[in-house]
């Protein structure tokens, strides 16, 4: 167990955020007054069962959806008030995404898939270094369908990371992977955090993953069940489930 140094400079804060879906009688409140904050350079795990609102919160932070109430602030700017164009710019400049199902472009090679996001950045990370870090150097000229699930997810992480985003959002990054590969991916995320100091938010329903986070946000039925700082961060390779 490694005790992490805690930083107080939060880059994100979510205040009284509400979000509902549907209309009339079918209207369901998915988030009901969520408030929290995320510190720069830290890993945060959002936990919760299906329907707890964790993916919705991630989408709101990403600016992929709009809040019905409350505010989302980044560096004192209110993301929730951005128009579509500014949201696009915000995502382009600040965010990286990792999805459960990789979403790689099938007719681009590993390296080219990463270049897709390199193109968006004014100050990208060197791709070759990144490929080595990801363990994909030998596979850089392969197409996604020539890779294993773990390798595809590594590529997806590389794609998200090449922009050197302030915030890396991971939506169930190990959801489609087996135990061993999942651990490899989590170790990779951890090493990236240590190397590049990005703020990382991981949404998962896997309780074990919370142990590698600096902050754990538990949601249930659209509300914050607990919002704690993990004093004793477990290295990813020691996680068990």
């Amino acid at each position, binding site marked *: 167990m490694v005790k992490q140094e805690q930083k107080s400079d939060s880059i994100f804060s979510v205040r009284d955020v509400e979000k509902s879906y549907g209309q009339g009688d079918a209207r369901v409140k998915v988030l009901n007054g969520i408030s929290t904050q995320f510190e720069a350079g830290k890993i945060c795990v959002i936990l919760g069962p299906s329907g707890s609102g964790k993916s919705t919160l991630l989408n709101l932070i990403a600016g992929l959806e709009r809040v019905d109430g409350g505010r989302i602030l980044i560096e004192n700017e209110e993301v929730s008030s951005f128009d579509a164009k500014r949201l696009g710019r915000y995502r382009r400049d600040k965010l990286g995404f990792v999805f459960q199902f990789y979403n790689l472009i099938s*007719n681009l090679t590993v390296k080219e898939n990463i270049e897709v996001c390199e*193109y968006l950045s004014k100050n990208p990370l060197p791709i070759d270094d990144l490929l080595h870090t990801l363990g994909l150097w030998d596979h850089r000229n392969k197409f996604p369908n020539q890779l294993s699930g773990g390798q595809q997810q590594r590529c997806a992480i590389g794609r998200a990371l090449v922009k050197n985003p302030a915030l890396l959002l991971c939506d169930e990054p190990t959801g489609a992977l087996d135990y061993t590969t999942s651990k490899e991916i989590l170790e990779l995320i951890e090493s990236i955090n240590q190397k590049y100091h990005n703020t990382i938010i991981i949404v998962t329903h896997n309780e074990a993953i919370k142990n590698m986070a600096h902050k754990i946000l538990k949601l249930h039925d659209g509300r914050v069940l607990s919002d704690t700082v993990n004093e004793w961060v477990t290295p990813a390779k020691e996680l068990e489930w």
Partner: protein
Amino acid sequence: MMRNPLRKRYPRDLKNNYGRYIAVFLMLMATIALMSGFLSVSDGVQEAFIKNREDCKLEDGLFTSMQEIPQEIIRKIELTGTQVFENYYVNETVEAGKTLRVYKDREHINLVTVIEGNMPKGNKEIALERLFAQTNQIAIGDSVQISGKKLKVSGYVCLPDYSSLFEKNSDIMMDSFHFGVGIVTEEAFADYTGDSIVYNYSYRYKDQSLSNDQKREKSKDVREKLVENNVLLTNFCLAEDNNSISFVEDDLASDVPLMKVLMYMIIIIMAFVFSIVISSTIDSEATSIGTLLAFGYSKSEIIHHYIGLPIIVTICSAVVGNLLGYTAMPNLFTGMYYGSYSLPPMKIRINSEALLLTTAVPILIMLVINTVILTHKLSISPLQFLRRELRKRTNRKPVKLPKSSFFSRFRLRVIFQNRVNYLTLGIGIFFASVILMFGLCISPLIEHYVDSIQKNTISNYQYILKYPVEYDTIKTSERFTLKSLDTYYKPAHKDIEVVFYGINEKSVYVPELELSAKNEGVYFSDGLAKKLNKEVGDKVVFQDSYTKEKYTMELKGIHYYPAGLAVFMSQKELNKMLDYDKEYFNGYFSNDEIKFEDDNALLTVVTTKDMVKLGDQMSSSFSQMAPLCLGISIIIYLVLMYLLTKIVIDKNAIHISFMKVFGYEENEIRKLYLTSTTLVVITSLLVTLPLVKITMYKCFELVLIKISGYIPIYVPTYLYLEIVLIGLISYFAINYLHVKRINRIEMSDALKNKE
């Protein structure tokens, strides 16, 4: 600045979907090549034609007199501000049924251009108008027999006053088979004397900068002067009303927009096809697009990316199409123009406007249509793309299907799923069917026209006389009065000539008409009634083009007489109306050939054989249209069917794989996925037929405006069957490829780890 790495997908996408892109490329390239070739030739022809008219001092009008006009009258006429030149000719028979109009070489007006060989020398040579000579395979150096004299062909020429070979201005079609023009020396022409000479005069305005209205006024002055001086005119015609001069120009003027409309329609259809292809790709790549949008790619960057290949393909098609258009295609179109008209030599030049129309405009069409459709397609949020919620209305209830077998319901679902593809395919099939019907119907239409003329002729021979001559020996013949009057034809903004038949009230040749001397109205030939859009009871104004006397006629009935635009009335009534003698006549109907003792009185003979000649000429003029239309329509059928139905297979490839896993056999899968397409193709071919017919008739009406006569539109029933059959054969060729494609889909595809 780094180039967008998404561009790297282009060559791979091209490689993986080469069939799709080759089909679109071929279609666009062929369309652009045709258009570019056509525009380059029509521009070249137009330029050469206009220059030749100026260089060769084309007449502004002509008049023909029964007798030679004395010089003092000519001088009086020239006081109107015109120069009048003798342009006498003789009509000679060269072979059975072939007339050669012989002029002496011109020095001041309508100058001759030598195309090949030389101008004639001495009195034993003749230069022939090129088209007539080539149509009748008369080579330079050959001899032609004219009035018992053998004349050697010294060369081929073209004449600005005979760019279209109309023997008479009222002829429906030019006729290079049976009518041509020859030029002999003054010395050779001096051999013709007396009644064989037609006293034709051509005039030109001294001031060539006059406006069209001023020119018309001046021509009016010329005609008035002629009438004032008692010149017996048999013809007076302004250049712009003279089909031999103006028909090419009118034809070029209407061909170019028609061709443009046809080509742009194809490009618009192809742009829609591309947008369907892209939409289908976007559907299949929805999560990748959602990811890109989530990463901060803008919608315009995504549109830019997806629109890239269509634009690249269009640019390639435009480049190759234009190269072919300026190299291979001109032969086809010059063949069409020079095979129909007598034109001066032309040069193919790169025309900046044509280049713009065949490059920038197709690219712009592709860009606008695809941008609009893709902007709409990408109007959903990144999250919806990630979740594959690709429709704005996600709560749409499934269409309730009637109770039927599982297979029928399944096929209906496939049709609903692909309704946009099938709708576009239906529109494409309609469009191709119109072109196909146009190409296929030309030949039966001409045959039907000639046949109906032959069957509905008044008599085997119509003898038209210069003046009344009694021939007592002819017992079966019947006298009639013939007069040509003009009426204004609004759609073409010009006067058309109508032949008035004054017929005996007890005619044995036209017994079905109730004719009486009382002014009770006249019969119109059905073609005239249709052309002028008149019904029984309507009144029409006719005018004598020489005297300007106006006559208002009430339409009493319609007589089926397809040979021309004619009015039938009582002979007594016509004579009275024209202030002729009560017993005046200038023609004979006869079923037997008449040997006239005095040929001088005979102006012309119209036989049923002349009508067949017309059919030959029409068939020859349109002969290249049929294979061209057939080729274009089959290409459209094949390309659209291939592209739009392939998407159905591609879209359902994973489901087809699942079906195989479930245990469905290949023929069952074909029934599920291909039969729905087959049904749509058959339905489209059948359902669009009435619409094809209506469109076809409307197109033909537009074509008919150009010609002096009226040709009844005729589409035999078997043609509809032919269209459906050609459509089906094209489809089954494509279907065969799809069957192979379905068979290639593997079960393992369904078992792979997919989202």
